[in-house]
Protein backbone atom coordinates (compact mmCIF):
# COMPACT_ATOMS: atom_id res chain seq x y z
CA UNK A 1 0.00 0.00 0.00
CA UNK A 2 1.15 3.52 -0.80
CA UNK A 3 1.98 5.82 2.06
CA UNK A 4 -0.21 8.84 1.62
CA UNK A 5 -0.32 11.92 3.80
CA UNK A 6 -3.58 12.79 5.47
CA UNK A 7 -4.19 15.64 3.03
CA UNK A 8 -3.62 13.27 0.09
CA UNK A 9 -6.11 10.85 1.59
CA UNK A 10 -8.58 13.69 2.01
CA UNK A 11 -8.06 14.66 -1.62
CA UNK A 12 -8.58 11.13 -2.93
CA UNK A 13 -11.73 10.80 -0.79
CA UNK A 14 -13.08 14.01 -2.29
CA UNK A 15 -12.31 12.88 -5.84
CA UNK A 16 -14.06 9.55 -5.23
CA UNK A 17 -17.07 11.28 -3.66
CA UNK A 18 -17.44 13.79 -6.47
CA UNK A 19 -15.46 12.85 -9.59
CA UNK A 20 -17.07 15.72 -11.50
CA UNK A 21 -15.57 18.40 -9.27
CA UNK A 22 -12.92 20.55 -10.95
CA UNK A 23 -9.48 21.17 -9.50
CA UNK A 24 -10.44 24.57 -8.07
CA UNK A 25 -13.39 23.13 -6.18
CA UNK A 26 -11.35 20.19 -4.89
CA UNK A 27 -8.61 22.57 -3.74
CA UNK A 28 -11.12 24.57 -1.77
CA UNK A 29 -12.60 21.45 -0.15
CA UNK A 30 -9.26 20.07 1.00
CA UNK A 31 -7.92 23.49 1.91
CA UNK A 32 -4.99 24.02 -0.44
CA UNK A 33 -4.15 26.25 -3.38
CA UNK A 34 -5.34 25.22 -6.85
CA UNK A 35 -1.75 24.76 -8.08
CA UNK A 36 -0.80 22.58 -5.11
CA UNK A 37 -3.97 20.55 -5.57
CA UNK A 38 -3.28 20.10 -9.28
CA UNK A 39 0.21 18.85 -8.42
CA UNK A 40 -1.18 16.38 -5.88
CA UNK A 41 -3.67 15.05 -8.44
CA UNK A 42 -0.79 14.62 -10.91
CA UNK A 43 1.07 12.67 -8.22
CA UNK A 44 -1.93 10.37 -7.68
CA UNK A 45 -1.98 9.74 -11.44
CA UNK A 46 1.76 9.02 -11.48
CA UNK A 47 1.51 6.62 -8.56
CA UNK A 48 -1.16 4.81 -10.55
CA UNK A 49 -3.75 5.32 -7.80
CA UNK A 50 -5.95 7.26 -10.20
CA UNK A 51 -6.05 5.14 -13.34
CA UNK A 52 -8.19 7.61 -15.25
CA UNK A 53 -11.63 9.09 -15.69
CA UNK A 54 -14.30 7.60 -17.93
CA UNK A 55 -17.67 8.91 -19.04
CA UNK A 56 -20.86 7.59 -17.48
CA UNK A 57 -23.39 6.57 -20.08
CA UNK A 58 -27.09 6.71 -19.35
CA UNK A 59 -28.12 3.61 -21.27
CA UNK A 60 -31.81 4.26 -20.62
CA UNK A 61 -31.56 7.38 -22.76
CA UNK A 62 -30.36 5.18 -25.59
CA UNK A 63 -33.32 2.87 -25.20
CA UNK A 64 -31.70 0.20 -23.03
CA UNK A 65 -34.35 -0.21 -20.36
CA UNK A 66 -33.26 -3.54 -18.91
CA UNK A 67 -30.14 -4.50 -17.01
CA UNK A 68 -29.69 -8.14 -16.06
CA UNK A 69 -26.94 -9.82 -14.07
CA UNK A 70 -26.31 -13.30 -15.38
CA UNK A 71 -24.51 -15.44 -12.83
CA UNK A 72 -22.91 -18.38 -14.54
CA UNK A 73 -21.43 -21.61 -13.25
CA UNK A 74 -19.03 -23.20 -15.70
CA UNK A 75 -18.40 -26.84 -16.45
CA UNK A 76 -14.83 -26.84 -15.21
CA UNK A 77 -14.19 -30.42 -16.30
CA UNK A 78 -13.83 -29.08 -19.82
CA UNK A 79 -10.40 -27.92 -20.87
CA UNK A 80 -9.78 -24.16 -20.46
CA UNK A 81 -13.42 -23.59 -19.52
CA UNK A 82 -12.86 -20.01 -18.28
CA UNK A 83 -10.85 -18.84 -21.28
CA UNK A 84 -13.12 -20.50 -23.84
CA UNK A 85 -16.22 -19.05 -22.21
CA UNK A 86 -14.73 -15.55 -21.83
CA UNK A 87 -13.58 -15.37 -25.45
CA UNK A 88 -17.17 -16.02 -26.52
CA UNK A 89 -18.72 -13.67 -23.96
CA UNK A 90 -16.51 -10.78 -25.09
CA UNK A 91 -18.05 -10.99 -28.54
CA UNK A 92 -21.57 -10.23 -27.29
CA UNK A 93 -21.92 -6.47 -27.57
CA UNK A 94 -24.76 -6.18 -25.04
CA UNK A 95 -22.34 -7.39 -22.34
CA UNK A 96 -20.83 -4.34 -20.66
CA UNK A 97 -19.19 -5.97 -17.62
CA UNK A 98 -17.48 -9.30 -17.11
CA UNK A 99 -16.38 -10.43 -13.67
CA UNK A 100 -14.88 -13.71 -12.52
CA UNK A 101 -15.27 -15.04 -8.98
CA UNK A 102 -14.15 -17.49 -6.39
CA UNK A 103 -17.32 -18.97 -4.98
CA UNK A 104 -20.44 -20.75 -6.15
CA UNK A 105 -20.68 -18.46 -9.17
CA UNK A 106 -17.76 -18.47 -11.64
CA UNK A 107 -18.60 -15.59 -13.96
CA UNK A 108 -21.03 -12.72 -13.98
CA UNK A 109 -22.10 -10.93 -17.15
CA UNK A 110 -23.93 -7.64 -17.04
CA UNK A 111 -26.38 -7.50 -19.93
CA UNK A 112 -28.01 -4.36 -21.32
CA UNK A 113 -31.21 -4.95 -23.27
CA UNK A 114 -33.84 -2.72 -24.84
CA UNK A 115 -36.82 -4.70 -23.59
CA UNK A 116 -37.85 -8.22 -22.61
CA UNK A 117 -38.09 -9.37 -26.18
CA UNK A 118 -34.61 -8.12 -26.92
CA UNK A 119 -33.32 -9.72 -23.72
CA UNK A 120 -34.89 -13.02 -24.68
CA UNK A 121 -33.15 -12.99 -28.03
CA UNK A 122 -29.76 -12.18 -26.47
CA UNK A 123 -30.29 -14.90 -23.88
CA UNK A 124 -31.42 -17.62 -26.26
CA UNK A 125 -29.40 -16.84 -29.35
CA UNK A 126 -26.14 -15.69 -27.80
CA UNK A 127 -25.72 -16.49 -24.11
CA UNK A 128 -27.00 -20.07 -24.15
CA UNK A 129 -24.79 -20.77 -27.15
CA UNK A 130 -21.64 -19.91 -25.21
CA UNK A 131 -19.37 -22.89 -24.48
CA UNK A 132 -18.80 -24.63 -21.12
CA UNK A 133 -21.92 -23.35 -19.31
CA UNK A 134 -23.23 -25.58 -16.59
CA UNK A 135 -25.76 -23.30 -14.87
CA UNK A 136 -27.20 -19.82 -15.45
CA UNK A 137 -29.11 -17.69 -12.99
CA UNK A 138 -30.50 -14.24 -13.66
CA UNK A 139 -30.97 -11.22 -11.42
CA UNK A 140 -32.90 -8.38 -12.99
CA UNK A 141 -32.00 -4.90 -11.79
CA UNK A 142 -34.89 -2.99 -10.25
CA UNK A 143 -32.89 0.00 -9.04
CA UNK A 144 -29.48 1.18 -7.92
CA UNK A 145 -29.86 2.15 -4.28
CA UNK A 146 -26.22 3.11 -3.83
CA UNK A 147 -23.51 3.34 -6.45
CA UNK A 148 -20.16 4.83 -5.57
CA UNK A 149 -16.44 4.32 -6.00
CA UNK A 150 -15.74 5.69 -2.55
CA UNK A 151 -13.45 3.72 -0.26
CA UNK A 152 -13.12 4.11 3.49
CA UNK A 153 -9.56 5.59 3.36
Amino acid at each position, binding site marked *: *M*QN*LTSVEKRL*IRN*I*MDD*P*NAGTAKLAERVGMSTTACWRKIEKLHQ*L*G*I*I*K*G*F*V*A*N*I*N*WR*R*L*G*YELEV*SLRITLDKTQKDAFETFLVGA*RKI*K*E*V*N*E*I*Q*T*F*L*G*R*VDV*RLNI*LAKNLEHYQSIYRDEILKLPCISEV*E*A*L*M*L*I*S*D*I*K*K*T*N*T*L*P*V
Partner: protein
Amino acid sequence: MIVLDELDRSIVELLIQQQNLTPSEISRSLKVSQSKVWRRIKSLKDSGVLNGKQVLIDIEKLGFGVTVFLGVKLATKGRVSLIDFEKAVTSIPEVQLVQHVLGLYDYRLRVVAKDISDFERVLRRRIMTLPGIGDVEANVLLSEERRLGPIC
Protein backbone atom coordinates in the same frame (compact mmCIF):
# COMPACT_ATOMS: atom_id res chain seq x y z
CA MET B 1 -35.23 7.49 -26.73
CA ILE B 2 -32.25 9.08 -28.43
CA VAL B 3 -30.81 7.62 -31.61
CA LEU B 4 -27.11 8.19 -32.18
CA ASP B 5 -25.51 8.50 -35.57
CA GLU B 6 -22.10 7.16 -36.53
CA LEU B 7 -20.19 10.22 -35.26
CA ASP B 8 -22.03 10.32 -31.90
CA ARG B 9 -21.26 6.67 -31.39
CA SER B 10 -17.56 7.12 -32.15
CA ILE B 11 -17.37 10.02 -29.69
CA VAL B 12 -19.16 8.06 -26.95
CA GLU B 13 -16.96 5.05 -27.61
CA LEU B 14 -13.84 7.16 -27.02
CA LEU B 15 -15.27 8.78 -23.89
CA ILE B 16 -16.29 5.43 -22.35
CA GLN B 17 -12.63 4.53 -22.44
CA GLN B 18 -11.13 7.85 -21.45
CA GLN B 19 -13.17 10.79 -20.30
CA ASN B 20 -10.64 13.58 -20.17
CA LEU B 21 -10.02 13.72 -23.88
CA THR B 22 -10.28 17.25 -25.20
CA PRO B 23 -12.44 18.04 -28.24
CA SER B 24 -9.23 18.65 -30.21
CA GLU B 25 -7.87 15.18 -29.35
CA ILE B 26 -11.20 13.64 -30.33
CA SER B 27 -11.38 15.63 -33.55
CA ARG B 28 -7.88 14.49 -34.48
CA SER B 29 -8.58 10.83 -33.88
CA LEU B 30 -11.95 10.89 -35.69
CA LYS B 31 -10.80 13.33 -38.40
CA VAL B 32 -13.72 15.74 -38.05
CA SER B 33 -13.67 19.41 -37.11
CA GLN B 34 -13.23 20.43 -33.50
CA SER B 35 -16.35 22.60 -33.46
CA LYS B 36 -18.45 19.72 -34.73
CA VAL B 37 -17.09 17.46 -31.95
CA TRP B 38 -17.75 20.17 -29.38
CA ARG B 39 -21.36 20.59 -30.54
CA ARG B 40 -21.99 16.85 -30.50
CA ILE B 41 -20.55 16.47 -26.98
CA LYS B 42 -22.73 19.34 -25.81
CA SER B 43 -25.87 17.78 -27.23
CA LEU B 44 -24.97 14.35 -25.79
CA LYS B 45 -24.60 16.02 -22.40
CA ASP B 46 -27.80 18.03 -22.78
CA SER B 47 -29.81 14.96 -23.71
CA GLY B 48 -28.38 13.09 -20.71
CA VAL B 49 -26.62 10.35 -22.69
CA LEU B 50 -23.32 11.49 -21.23
CA ASN B 51 -23.94 11.65 -17.53
CA GLY B 52 -20.84 13.01 -15.80
CA LYS B 53 -17.70 11.03 -15.22
CA GLN B 54 -16.41 8.29 -13.04
CA VAL B 55 -12.94 7.91 -11.55
CA LEU B 56 -11.08 4.63 -11.89
CA ILE B 57 -9.04 3.91 -8.79
CA ASP B 58 -6.46 1.19 -8.25
CA ILE B 59 -7.95 0.10 -4.95
CA GLU B 60 -5.12 -2.30 -4.17
CA LYS B 61 -2.72 0.64 -4.07
CA LEU B 62 -4.93 2.10 -1.34
CA GLY B 63 -4.72 -1.10 0.65
CA PHE B 64 -8.00 -2.71 -0.39
CA GLY B 65 -7.07 -6.18 -1.54
CA VAL B 66 -10.47 -7.87 -1.42
CA THR B 67 -13.73 -7.18 -3.25
CA VAL B 68 -16.68 -9.43 -2.48
CA PHE B 69 -20.10 -9.53 -4.08
CA LEU B 70 -22.92 -10.52 -1.78
CA GLY B 71 -26.31 -11.82 -2.78
CA VAL B 72 -28.69 -10.98 0.05
CA LYS B 73 -32.13 -12.36 0.71
CA LEU B 74 -34.32 -10.63 3.25
CA ALA B 75 -35.85 -12.73 5.99
CA THR B 76 -39.01 -10.68 6.13
CA LYS B 77 -40.39 -8.71 3.24
CA GLY B 78 -42.72 -5.74 3.10
CA ARG B 79 -42.40 -2.04 2.56
CA VAL B 80 -41.05 -1.22 5.99
CA SER B 81 -38.33 -3.83 6.07
CA LEU B 82 -37.06 -2.74 2.64
CA ILE B 83 -36.68 0.85 3.80
CA ASP B 84 -35.00 -0.12 7.08
CA PHE B 85 -32.63 -2.45 5.31
CA GLU B 86 -31.73 0.06 2.60
CA LYS B 87 -31.13 2.84 5.06
CA ALA B 88 -28.80 0.70 7.14
CA VAL B 89 -26.92 -0.95 4.30
CA THR B 90 -26.19 2.27 2.38
CA SER B 91 -24.55 3.77 5.46
CA ILE B 92 -21.85 1.08 5.63
CA PRO B 93 -18.70 2.71 4.18
CA GLU B 94 -17.28 -0.58 2.85
CA VAL B 95 -20.41 -1.15 0.76
CA GLN B 96 -19.91 0.53 -2.63
CA LEU B 97 -22.91 -0.80 -4.47
CA VAL B 98 -26.43 -1.70 -3.41
CA GLN B 99 -28.77 -2.95 -6.12
CA HIS B 100 -32.36 -3.95 -5.59
CA VAL B 101 -32.84 -6.98 -7.84
CA LEU B 102 -35.47 -9.47 -8.86
CA GLY B 103 -34.57 -13.14 -8.77
CA LEU B 104 -32.94 -15.56 -6.37
CA TYR B 105 -31.78 -12.65 -4.17
CA ASP B 106 -33.32 -9.35 -3.16
CA TYR B 107 -30.13 -7.28 -3.16
CA ARG B 108 -26.68 -7.34 -4.69
CA LEU B 109 -23.91 -5.69 -2.72
CA ARG B 110 -20.33 -4.87 -3.62
CA VAL B 111 -18.14 -4.82 -0.53
CA VAL B 112 -14.49 -3.76 -0.36
CA ALA B 113 -12.13 -4.77 2.43
CA LYS B 114 -8.42 -4.63 3.23
CA ASP B 115 -8.06 -8.41 3.39
CA ILE B 116 -10.10 -11.51 4.16
CA SER B 117 -10.04 -10.96 7.92
CA ASP B 118 -11.16 -7.35 7.43
CA PHE B 119 -13.95 -8.68 5.21
CA GLU B 120 -14.94 -11.10 7.97
CA ARG B 121 -15.19 -8.16 10.37
CA VAL B 122 -17.44 -6.23 7.95
CA LEU B 123 -19.56 -9.31 7.29
CA ARG B 124 -20.04 -10.22 10.94
CA ARG B 125 -20.37 -6.80 12.52
CA ARG B 126 -22.06 -4.79 9.79
CA ILE B 127 -23.76 -7.06 7.26
CA MET B 128 -25.08 -9.90 9.42
CA THR B 129 -26.50 -7.37 11.89
CA LEU B 130 -28.55 -5.53 9.24
CA PRO B 131 -32.28 -5.34 9.95
CA GLY B 132 -34.23 -8.04 8.16
CA ILE B 133 -31.21 -9.87 6.75
CA GLY B 134 -31.75 -13.50 5.71
CA ASP B 135 -29.63 -15.62 3.43
CA VAL B 136 -26.27 -14.26 2.26
CA GLU B 137 -24.09 -15.66 -0.51
CA ALA B 138 -20.56 -14.42 -1.03
CA ASN B 139 -18.43 -14.55 -4.18
CA VAL B 140 -14.90 -13.15 -4.07
CA LEU B 141 -13.99 -11.05 -7.12
CA LEU B 142 -11.01 -12.39 -9.06
CA SER B 143 -11.05 -10.22 -12.16
CA GLU B 144 -13.15 -7.52 -13.72
CA GLU B 145 -13.43 -6.21 -17.27
CA ARG B 146 -15.32 -3.19 -18.45
CA ARG B 147 -16.60 -3.64 -21.98
CA LEU B 148 -17.87 -0.95 -24.33
CA GLY B 149 -21.42 -2.27 -24.29
CA PRO B 150 -23.92 -1.92 -27.14
CA ILE B 151 -22.53 1.39 -28.40
CA CYS B 152 -20.81 0.20 -31.54
